[in-house]
């Protein structure tokens, strides 16, 4: 088990819910002068105390207060060239929104933020800021970067609690009398739908499941991204003329080509890469072995933690082992704790330093009592009478760096042991769904993902794609970025006056 280093611990200051102001002041009061940027460490964000939160599904991080946000904003050096913005996949004008916070003009700050990022309340909570905008912050070189993600979240939340009529609203372009179909309602699809409706298109979203959001709905747990945030975003899209068709598995119920024939002018595919990979080891189909997707879907989408009030059950394991080191593994481990597990262990092939998960999630997981077994790779799920009793693990060591720059784990000959478990959750990644071929008759690359040009165009000029189905599992913000740039490309294509392009489309 790995210890937190002390400065990280200091950052995880815990405040209970009651100490926070219930509502934030709506009218900003003027601050007289702009202070010089300080060298103080970044301001901590209040969390629900670990011992409390492991028995509920409420949000862990509580967000900045207005004072904290202002103080954090004032740490910003306001660099002219704003290197942070280069670290953001959708190039949010970070410099300017922070400047607006410093100037105490929150409505302006929100407007700047929303201009580039349609889902800031989501991104402020789930983006891996430490490897994006905050990684390129100049302060990061000398100490701690400005907490850009927390400021983003603060602004989005501040906007949400404003009275409806004051909230930031994007103005829609006049209707262009063209219809676009968006397949999948994950971040890629939502971003594409938002951008297209903004540009005056009539957008219809087709989603296979009964509720919109993709991974945001079925994967990322309530305690990290409360449902109401997603619901609000979807509602905002509905108000912006976007129609949602739930329970519509494109491919079998209609293919993209059929949608084009039906009169849609273009299609955007954002179906994600949802098919869970399994470990391909003996015993992986024993009862009590879950893919992280199944485990999280049962709990998040189907509310198994409220069984039997909700109808879908989930096994409430006592000794749970989660395999993997990404966000998905953290979510599964922390969910298992909240379902009442006595012991939750994360088994990861490399060490904590190589974990791809957001740092904040790893820290939160450890604070909550999740145990870490580093350098361990699963060999076999052992069981009895059809049920899991343990996981045989192979001890690993780190060898030379591989193509991705991470050191490759190699087995230590002869060092294996069985870790007792009644539940095993495998969070080792996902693949493209084989039904993709039915969705659209377009080129697929050797890994089974859609191959697209720079603007997201597939081999059918009217069909665009973006998000995990193009890149393989990535991040929310990258999926949104891809959805947005494809939307812009669709707009260009459909507005092109030149006959060549028009002909190319048919």
């Amino acid at each position, binding site marked *: 088990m790995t210890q937190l280093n002390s400065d990280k611990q200091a950052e995880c200051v815990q405040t209970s819910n009651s100490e926070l102001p219930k509502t934030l002041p709506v009218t900003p009061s003027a601050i007289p002068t702009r202070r010089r940027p300080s060298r103080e460490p970044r301001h901590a964000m209040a969390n629900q105390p670990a011992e409390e939160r492991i028995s509920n599904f409420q949000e862990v991080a509580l967000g900045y207060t207005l004072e904290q946000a202002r103080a954090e904003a004032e740490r910003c050096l306001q660099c002219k060239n704003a290197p942070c913005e280069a670290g953001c996949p959708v190039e949010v004008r970070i410099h300017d929104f922070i400047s607006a916070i410093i100037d105490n003009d929150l409505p302006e700050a929100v407007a700047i933020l929303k201009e580039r990022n349609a889902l800031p309340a989501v991104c402020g909570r789930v983006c891996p800021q430490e490897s994006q905008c905050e990684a390129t912050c100049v302060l990061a070189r000398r100490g701690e970067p400005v907490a850009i993600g927390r400021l983003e979240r603060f602004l989005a939340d501040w906007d949400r609690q404003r009275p409806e009529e004051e909230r930031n609203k994007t103005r829609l372009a006049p209707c262009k009398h063209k219809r676009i179909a968006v397949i999948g309602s994950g971040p890629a699809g939502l971003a594409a739908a938002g951008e297209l409706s903004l540009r005056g298109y009539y957008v219809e979203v087709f989603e296979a499941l009964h509720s919109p959001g993709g991974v945001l709905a079925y994967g990322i747990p309530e305690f990290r991204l409360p449902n109401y945030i997603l619901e609000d975003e979807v509602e905002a899209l509905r108000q912006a003329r976007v129609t949602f068709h739930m329970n519509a598995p494109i491919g079998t119920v209609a293919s993209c080509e059929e949608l084009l024939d039906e009169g849609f002018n273009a299609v955007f595919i954002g179906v994600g890469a949802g098919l869970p990979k399994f470990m391909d080891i003996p015993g992986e*189909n024993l009862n009590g072995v879950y*893919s992280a997707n199944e485990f999280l879907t049962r709990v998040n989408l189907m509310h198994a933690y409220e069984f039997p009030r909700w109808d879908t059950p989930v096994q409430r394991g006592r000794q749970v082992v989660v395999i993997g080191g990404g966000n998905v593994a953290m979510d599964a481990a922390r969910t298992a704790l909240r379902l009442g597990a006595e012991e939750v262990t994360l088994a990861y092939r490399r060490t904590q330093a190589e974990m791809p998960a957001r740092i904040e999630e790893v820290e939160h997981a450890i604070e909550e009592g999740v145990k870490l077994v580093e350098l361990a790779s699963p060999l076999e799920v052992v069981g009895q009478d059809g049920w899991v009793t343990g996981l045989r693990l192979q001890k690993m060591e780190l060898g030379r760096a591989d193509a991705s720059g991470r050191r490759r784990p190699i087995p230590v000959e002869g060092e294996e042991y069985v870790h007792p478990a009644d539940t095993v959750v495998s969070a080792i990644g996902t693949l493209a769904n084989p039904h993709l071929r039915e969705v659209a008759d377009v080129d697929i690359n050797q890994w089974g993902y859609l191959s697209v040009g720079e603007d997201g165009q597939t081999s059918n000029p009217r069909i665009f794609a973006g998000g995990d189905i193009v890149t393989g599992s990535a991040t929310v913000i990258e999926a949104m970025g891809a959805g947005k740039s494809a939307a812009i490309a669709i707009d260009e294509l459909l507005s092109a006056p030149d006959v060549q392009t028009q002909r190319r489309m048919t």
Partner: protein
Amino acid sequence: MNEIIEKRMLSEGVIQLTVYEPRIAAKCQAGQFFMLRVTDRGERVPFTFSDWSREEGWIRFIFMVVGKTTSLLSELAAGDYIKDLAGPLGRPSLRSHDTRRPSWGNDFEGLQQGGSVVVVGGGVGTAVAFPVARALCEEGYQVHVITGARTAELLILEEELRALPLASLSIMTDDGSAGSKGLVTAPLKELCSSRSVSHAIIVGPAIMMKFAAGTALDAGVPATVSLNPLMIDGTGMCGACRVSIDGATKFACVDGPDFSAASVDWAELMSRQRSYIDDERESHAAHQRHVQEREHENCDCFDESSLWARGFKKGGWAT
């Protein structure tokens, strides 16, 4: 939300619902299924299409009341609505109906175009067998059908089957109350060992499929089965439906539900089907208590969690 346009009690505890859903009715094929949710808090449960009308826009399915979801469904009447209905899902039984994906596994091994095939339906599995048999007839195959049930009352779709141009129809009951007394394996063995058929398609409870497939395979006739593991999304996203096929993990909802019988790990399938048996019982028992409590619908003892019960009245859905 989809309206139930007809409800028929086929026998005690066996119900047929016809639901208006033109989008799905236009597309579904024999062997495919759909997922439904009865209430806002309901489970997602798969059912295979037993029939459909592309012209009139309805689909039909048959189920036996075994747990909470099927109890809830059984309480609905014509004119009521089903909350969510998603489909068609899974691959069609007939390869010729599945044009876009390179096929594997369910290619009706050994069966030539227009050849002779037997379709076996056990219990409610006959609801799945019927459209497959019909599709095979339409495609010009010589189709033998064997249907079996515990007793005469539980036999379903007899009339519909009789209306098909079948090569033969055998009806079996455990107690001999209709057709011949015995199991479906008896006529199956005859057909297979006399080499009158070159492929067997078997649908029913796992244990019945296992034994019937064994009978066909022993006689040297390749067999296809339609697997029914637990499912959640039905779209390939969770892996709850995974089955071992020749030792490799496959997802029944996107790779199946039809698989070559010789490749199936039956013990694993049956063990996985039972993994939530206690929870299912708990859920069903709680529901039955609840049904009794519903007598109190108009007094204050009716708590918030029971509000959904009122939703069943037509138009009264809280959305």
